């Protein structure tokens, strides 16, 4: 175990054994098999460029994580506003009363997109992963691909963690002595100890006098100006060994200097040929792929569709510098990012749907009310019309019996009686069925 003298170590020195071996605990995702991604704390990420002030949460001062927007148009991380709200149920910015459930909603999509595109460093950069990737992909990278992610030790009876790269090497949780400082660490942590902690990790090169990290001796020996190395024309027959800093000098005098440049050109051509062949093979594969899918082959003049099929920079031609081990994984990670976007879209869709059906319900219930009202008025009117028709028929029948010739006007007296009759019955009817208009 390293001495508990660094500040971080001091804080955790009393915790369990499994957690005492690195000084970077804050960044270590809690590993529970595949749930690692869930444990990655996005608020601890280091951002590559400076982030627009508008994307910074006013509470935690880091770029938003699952931002929500309030009805008063202020944006916070979901966790931040929940914590702040528990203490004081107001908007932290303008201090207006705030109801957490009904007055906040997920921030607009454009904010999510901007956050997704921010470049972050892999949280395992303290352990040596130098990847810089957009924030939407980092969880996936750490959970599935990062060589330096801590994963459970493959040994069944060992419950410690080991970096993913070493997972094939069996249990590395046994004590070894550092050969430089005689401190005892676990094999799994030896490399990091010798990289960053070991008091004797640095040494001076005997030949050139510069300081280098001991266990990176090979790297130094490849560039040490005082180390002896073979002549650059060794391939063509020169057997001399000279110090690296005298290499240029020797090259001018080297017996093979005439053959050399020709040979160099040859090598260049050969390298070019190799890359061309590689590209050719790739194109062949692509053509086959297109043929299999039944796509119409593009004519030579329109090369656009082919270049559309190109993989993103860095994964097709520079295979060894690609951040992902293989193209499949790269696609997989893209796919996963898409998947999460689709999830977010569908949840947004659900929400919109909910809101719409609520709106529909509210409006249609009003319309229904009005409809029943109109229907009852209609009923009343219908009754009036029927009554008037009846009355009219009766009147005609009576007129037929009393004055078959219909020659003269009805007597005034008779008309008055009928009028009285109508108005009285109308009043009764109205009292029973008041029109509801």
């Amino acid at each position, binding site marked *: 175990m390293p001495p508990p003298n660094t500040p971080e170590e001091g804080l955790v020195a009393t915790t369990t054994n499994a957690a005492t071996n690195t000084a970077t605990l804050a960044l270590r995702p809690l590993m529970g098999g595949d749930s690692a991604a869930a444990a990655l704390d996005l608020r601890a990420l280091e951002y590559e460029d400076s982030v627009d002030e508008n994307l910074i949460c006013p509470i935690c001062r*880091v770029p938003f994580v699952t931002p929500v927007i309030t009805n008063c148009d202020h944006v916070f991380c979901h966790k931040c506003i929940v914590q702040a709200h528990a203490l*004081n149920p107001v908007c932290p*910015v303008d201090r207006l009363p705030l109801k957490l459930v009904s007055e906040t909603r997920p921030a607009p999509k454009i904010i999510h997109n901007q956050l997704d595109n921010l470049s972050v460093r892999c949280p395992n950069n303290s352990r040596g992963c130098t990847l810089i990737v957009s924030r939407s992909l980092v969880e996936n990278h750490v959970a599935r691909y990062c060589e330096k992610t801590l994963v459970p030790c493959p040994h069944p009876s060992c419950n410690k963690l080991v970096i993913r790269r070493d997972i094939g090497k069996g249990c590395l949780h046994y004590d070894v002595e550092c050969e430089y400082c005689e401190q005892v660490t676990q094999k799994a942590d030896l490399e990091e100890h010798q990289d960053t902690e070991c008091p004797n990790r640095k040494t001076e090169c005997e030949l050139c006098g510069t300081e280098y990290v001991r266990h990176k001796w090979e790297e130094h020996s490849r560039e040490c100006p005082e180390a002896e190395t073979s002549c650059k024309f060794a391939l063509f027959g020169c057997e001399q060994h000279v110090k690296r800093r005298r290499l240029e000098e020797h090259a001018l005098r080297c017996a093979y200097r005439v053959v050399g440049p020709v040979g160099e050109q040859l090598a260049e051509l050969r390298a070019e040929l190799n890359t061309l062949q590689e590209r050719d093979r790739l194109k062949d594969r692509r053509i086959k792929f297109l043929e299999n899918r039944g796509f119409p082959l593009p004519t030579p003049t329109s090369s656009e569709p082919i270049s559309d099929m190109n993989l993103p920079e860095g994964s097709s031609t520079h295979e060894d510098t690609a951040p992902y081990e293989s193209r499949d994984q790269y696609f997989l990670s893209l796919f996963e990012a898409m998947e999460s976007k689709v999830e977010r879209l569908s949840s947004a869709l659900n929400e919109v749907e909910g809101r719409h059906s609520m709106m529909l319900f509210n409006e249609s219930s009003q319309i229904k009310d009005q409809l029943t009202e109109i229907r009852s008025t209609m009923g009343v009117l219908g009754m009036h019309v029927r009554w008037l028709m009846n009355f009219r028929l009766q009147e005609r029948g009576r007129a037929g019996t009393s004055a078959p010739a219909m020659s003269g006007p009805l007597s005034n007296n008779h008309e008055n009686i009928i009028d009285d009759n109508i108005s009285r019955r109308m009043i009764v009817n109205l009292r029973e069925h008041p029109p509801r208009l």
Partner: protein
Amino acid sequence: MANLGPRRLTKELAKISNSLPPGITLVSADNLEEWFLDIQVLDQNPIYAGETYRLKFKFSTSYPIEPPEVTFVKLDTRPIPMHPHIYSNGIICLDLLGSQGWSPVQNVESVCMSIQSMLTGNTKNERPPGDEEFVRGNRLRPRDIDFYYHDNTV
């Protein structure tokens, strides 16, 4: 999320070590629990002219959700400023620092500026009523005292 505080304080520290408003200087921030800052009143208020005062910030792990504990500390060259809301033991009665008046969007810089402006605007060269008694009897930490913000004219 108990670790929100340290992370945010680290960010604040990085910012205020670079630049602070005039009249405010960072004295020390050796850890993420206790910081010291000096403040001066910049206009020619005769009560505070020529003096420098020292503020102590104490942060709990739930900062910035909870307010920091801010008091003046007394040193040979750093008196406690006269103000009807500042007790002679350095305790400041400012609603911004109470759990009701605090907002997590405040920060060390904004608190310093608020205290600065609270001094700037003051015209009464006096202590709060009952200061002696309060200072003699006070065993509580500032946050546990229930202040009454009855006098809003100062």
